[in-house]
């Protein structure tokens, strides 16, 4: 298996893990928080809110800006 395929396989693995975790979190009585609950908790503090939004801003600028 090539390095290219292994690298892409890793991304897909984490994507599937994230989707699976979120699906588990939506089951009643689950001890796993949803991704939304995680963001809400992190963004409850001003520091966390600015850090997450700065990451979002960086993402857009990284893909499109000089």
């Amino acid at each position, binding site marked *: 298996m090539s390095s290219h395929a292994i*690298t892409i396989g890793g991304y897909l693995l984490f994507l599937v893990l994230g989707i699976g*975790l979120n699906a588990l979190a939506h089951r009643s009585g689950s001890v796993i928080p949803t*991704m939304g609950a995680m963001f809400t908790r992190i963004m409850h*503090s001003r520091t966390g*809110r*600015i850090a997450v939004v700065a990451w979002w*801003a960086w993402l*857009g600028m990284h893909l*499109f800006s*000089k």
Partner: protein
Amino acid sequence: MAVFSHESAERRRAAMTGLLIPALITGLAYALVVGSFQRYSWPATIAVCIPAAAGVIVAWWVSAGSESEPERLGRAGVAAWAVVWVGASAWELTALYLQPSLSTDSYAHPTLSYLADPVLASVPGRAVVLFGWLAFGWYLARR
């Protein structure tokens, strides 16, 4: 305006729900117009920096906390999410550092931005990604 006030997070969310349709139309128009700009051009840079900067300023200014504490999260659940996010970040960073240099892409060790290049090479691809980026920003603003 309630969305940008220092009121509770619940009120902000309610106000944002009322703005959903105008925001959708504006977001679509933005994505179509800015998607027609070449990547890394000055028009694209300015057009993306405006909402990015506005988002950070609003995040700084808006009261983040609601009057009630958010639900407490179990350690096991937080750890599970940490594995996903830290793992994915480490995987991306590993691919980045396995490139010949930080500014030279590698087919063998593609980063997510490298994988996104074919999508972002076309106007429809850029428009879809820009709309998704804005939608994610909206989602975060509701948190």
